[in-house]
């Protein structure tokens, strides 16, 4: 029998939780807790640990194939390679907005999907693109060919001396 003299339920004097209801609350809580943790662990699976996909490291040819002042488009690799007096540099052709391939426009690059425009250094001139086109790391492979590391971004203006 509950003690009827005690006014139960006020904020200062909350009703006593008896042992039985405490234990059943704990049981229900541990059930949902365990299920929740188990589900969260199971749902960790679709988050890929390794990102499959093409190796984005391209040999583009020997340095003397790129005359000073030249520009070359590599369509399959989605990049442009330029050479000026200071060296060789590569600019990604993947639009920073939603990933379409940009095309060469008179004074820079233009994206066909949502109309972003970039200047020749890749800086945004118009449209929704949030960032400039990334400059990519250029290096030399063991056989003397130039190699572009398309996953490695370098600061704008970085050139590879050849």
């Amino acid at each position, binding site marked *: 029998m509950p003690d009827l003299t005690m006014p139960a339920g006020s904020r200062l004097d909350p009703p006593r939780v008896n042992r039985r209801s405490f234990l059943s609350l704990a049981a229900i809580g541990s059930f949902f807790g365990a299920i929740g943790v188990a589900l969260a662990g199971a749902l960790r699976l679709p988050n890929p640990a390794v990102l499959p996909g093409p190796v984005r490291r391209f040999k583009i040819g020997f340095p003397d194939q790129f005359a000073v002042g030249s520009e070359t488009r590599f369509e399959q690799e989605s990049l442009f390679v330029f050479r000026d007096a200071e060296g060789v540099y590569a600019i990604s052709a993947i639009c920073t907005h*939603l990933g379409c391939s940009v095309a060469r426009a008179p004074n820079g690059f233009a994206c066909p999907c949502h109309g972003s425009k970039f200047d020749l250094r890749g800086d945004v001139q118009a449209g929704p693109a949030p960032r400039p086109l990334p400059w990519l790391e250029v290096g030399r492979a063991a056989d003397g060919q130039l190699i572009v590391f398309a996953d490695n971004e370098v600061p704008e203006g970085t050139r590879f001396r050849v």
Partner: protein
Amino acid sequence: MASTATRPDRTTATQEFLHNLRLLPRTLKDAWFRIGHTPESEREVSQATFHNLFLHIHSVRVHVRTLAPAFTLGLGLISAASFVVLCITGVLLMVYYKPSTTLAYDSIKDLHYVVFTGRFMRNIHRWSAHVMVVAVFLHMARVFYTGSYKKPREFNWLVGLALLVLTLALSFTGYLLPYDQLAYWATTIGANIANSPRELTDAIGISTWFDPGGFQKRLLLGANFVGEDSLIRFYVLHVFVLPVLLIMLLGVHFWRIRKDGGLARPEEPMGGPAEWGGSMKRVFEPLATKTYGLMALVKGRRPTVNRGPENTVMSWPHLFWAELAVFMLTVAICLILSFYSDAPLKELANPAVPENPAKAPWYFLGLQELVSYSAFMGGLLIPLIAWVGLALIPFLDRRPGGEGVWFGTPGERRVAWQSLLFGLLTSVGMLAFTVNFGWLRNWFPRIHQLWIIAINPGSILVLLYAGWSLLVLKRKDSVRLAAVALFTCFLIGFTVLTYFATIHRGPNWQFYWWPSQWPVH
């Protein structure tokens, strides 16, 4: 009925066996249909409805307003019917479809050119998907403008909104499966919209530690680019996860209709006529001195507590005929469309060269227009705001009245017309301005990305609509009318943007008056 359970005297087991064999058609029928014959009296009809798994989601009697075609326009049923068509044709397509980047495109070509009725099945699948999306949107508008989301139907409105998301997700995941140019680039764009919170995290420089956008994209694609992993993920979502979720929620949706007391309708006085014995007559005369109740606890006023069968008719056959008719109509529409128009199939996906323009399916083109201002604001934030706004409607507009009647509260029709005009003018004006004068970045090339995210034609339209709705709230002193204003504005804005991006956006997302003016490339 089944007459000879025990063996009469002086018959052999062989005779009994033959006797039972002769009775087999009848005993089988008795076992299957518990009544054993076509139900005749209304009592038998009730039992037949009640005892059948597939029929018992209907109540035995249905209100005459529910059957009025001008009330529901059959839109919910059309949505459900087109989903059934999608399931059947989808399973048939699965027989030949191979979810692999090297085989998918060829298997679709096989379906198109080699498989008997393959092209027709794919067309039906495509067209019924369009029908489903249209019907779901219109169904939502019907429920809104008839005030049918009000208590006790708030929860079913939420279930409906979840079903809307599932419908669109099914469309989106199905888009990749042919693995043609359209599929590849629409999915690339979609995945990068999922990636677009990075715009914000980049702008404030925390992407290295906190990158929800990249997480969403990896989860969707399983890689950094659309490829084998993405195709399998989309396939599993499209043929299993999303349909199963949709079927479950559809079950909840139907069940709640029943539990919330059928379709919404106005209060009516007790003791009206009902169909009884073939004609409408008064069958229930409540006595003022008696209290009527159900023998179970029933929440709310809607289930027939304290009343007789006023203005109702038997579900069998009235409702069932109507349902079959709507189903036939849906199938007929899908068949006719599929007969005259083939589902498109572009060239094989080429990751090097995008389609120009690369357009999503038409119902996402309104979003694509917004995305061309800012991927994060247009692709994620505005849809989220709109969806949450829709979800809040039944909890902010709680004043009863006008349920189940088109534009049921006073002044509603007028506000709807005014909002239609306002929404039309603002969205068309905004588009015209943007096309003619450009936007922030055309004027200030060095502007910070945060400004582009925050202030763009899309977010300004949302602000205008919210402002208009607040004005209506103040002037008309009615939450319902403010909701009508906002809903109408968003509906019109969505329609205008969708139309604009479908017709007037061409290569490089530039404005053209007509697709025939697009430059040849």
